[in-house]
């Protein structure tokens, strides 16, 4: 293994250890939140809604809820970890070392993806208490979860790079991420919306991720799976290179 690879593995190990060390903060809350969603939206309200796209409502929302947890947790992991490193200044441990900017980005990205995968496993396990999850396309499901976790880990990293105070890392999840997630078809099919709002919804990247996941698990989707994967891939590449570019320029991390 060359030096860059060793340094990247060291950062990945550090970030993974962090996720597991603070498991009460990282893995339990999404489990509790999603249990409540399943109980309230799935069991209590879902019974009255009946079927959606040919599936019981509980089963219909399960992939979206898994994806919602993956999005919020992978984002939260990287934004929290990187911003804390900036505030406590131990980001300097990385910056003074010969690690390349790409290795730093991949290290944090991996931490976010690993948390996303853990959370997806926890929420999927909880979902099994409420509904059957007969995954139609297992490999595709794993790819969609990893890629989506990757996209939002990178988005969290960008947020942390620009953030100067704690408010800055709370604003995006509250005012951007949450509305886009709720309007991204987690709880409904966009085909229920009037044409105008369907068009607007298609501008929401999270719609593509939620529906890619729904297609992977249930085989139904509001969008073509090809479009979904393309969007996820494009966002991933765009955010990856933007993050590396910003770190190379020292934006948000160097005076």
């Amino acid at each position, binding site marked *: 293994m060359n030096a860059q690879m*060793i340094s990247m593995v060291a*950062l990945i*190990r550090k970030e993974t250890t962090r996720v597991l060390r603070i498991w009460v903060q990282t893995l339990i809350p999404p489990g509790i939140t999603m249990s409540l969603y399943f109980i309230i939206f799935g069991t209590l309200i879902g019974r009255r809604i009946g079927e959606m796209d040919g599936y019981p409502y509980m089963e219909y929302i399960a992939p979206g809820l898994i994806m919602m947890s993956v999005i919020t947790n992978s984002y939260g992991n990287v934004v929290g970890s990187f911003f804390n490193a900036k505030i406590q200044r131990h980001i300097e441990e990385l910056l003074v070392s010969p690690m390349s900017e790409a290795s730093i980005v991949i290290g944090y990205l991996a931490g976010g993806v690993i948390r996303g995968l853990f959370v997806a496993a926890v929420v999927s396990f909880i979902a099994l208490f409420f509904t059957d999850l007969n995954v139609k396309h297992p490999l595709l499901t794993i790819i969609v979860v990893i890629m989506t976790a990757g996209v939002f880990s990178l988005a969290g990293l960008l947020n942390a790079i620009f953030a100067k105070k704690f408010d800055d890392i709370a604003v995006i999840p509250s005012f951007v991420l949450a509305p886009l997630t709720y309007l991204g078809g987690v709880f409904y099919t966009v085909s229920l919306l009037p044409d105008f709002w369907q068009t607007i919804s298609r501008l929401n990247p999270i719609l593509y991720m939620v529906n890619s996941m729904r297609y992977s698990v249930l085989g139904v989707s509001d969008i073509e799976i090809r479009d979904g994967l393309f969007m996820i891939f494009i966002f991933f590449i765009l955010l990856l290179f933007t993050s590396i570019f910003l770190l190379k320029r020292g934006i948000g991390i160097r005076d």
Partner: protein
Amino acid sequence: MKALSVNDLSKQYRNGVQALKSVNFQVNQGDFFALLGPNGAGKTTAIGIITSLVNKTSGSVQVFNSDIDHQLSLAKSYLGVVPQEVNLNLFDKCINTLVNQAGFYGIPRPEAKKRAEDYLKQMDIWEKRNSNARDLSGGMKRRLMVARALVNKPKLLLLDEPTAGVDIETRRMMWSFLRELNNQGTTIILTTHYLEEAEQLCDHVAIIDEGEIIENDSMLNVLGKLKKEVFILNLENSLDVAPKIPGYETSLRSPREIEVSVTQSQGVNDIFTELKKIDIKIISMRNKTSRLEELFIELTNNQKEEQQR
């Protein structure tokens, strides 16, 4: 060979502050080099640029001939840095701090663990290896930061006020450790406000003030430029007034202590001769402040006066 070469280095921060104004200095391999200056003089900015924590405005920096603009990774691989402010991950165990840092330098994990043990032991904090950094005392945090900076076995170690706020015992322990490290061939650049520390440890000194180097020479030559030294003489018997010694300025500091100013051209022998003549017995003698401190004040005051003119 030059361990560090800083050429025409300038830094202007976004708020308009010009922290460095075309600074030049070189550090030879194996030197113990003091970079001194008052608060806000530009020392930390210079170290920040060398370690790539601060972007420079212009100029160039080479670490063992590797330019930080073109061979940054190679240049950084030679460096170890102990910053002025505590920048530890306070929730990490001490051992993990070192093992991770070694990993960031591309050192394989088994070797990283071995080095972490070595340096924690050398810094006398091995017993605290499983404690979180936040549970350490201030002195221990400093020692942990020194251990962390050494884990990649740097050829050039940059210490930005490493002994600030630590007790005398820890400071002395660190001095002896650094001396030994330098004797083994590590080039060391030290910034400190304890000028006695610099005078004892360093063989070269640069003084920076308001972003400009105002002195840069060997410690011996720099101290040789001191125009006046003040000595304190402890007397056996009490006095009411300061004795008059021809050619010397004297004053009574306390009934059993007198201060004598000695210029560069004068010796101290005459003082003893003159005092003996008037039956004053001296028990001991010491410098009022460190010689470097006196010179530092003289130089930085001159700089201020020049600017006022």
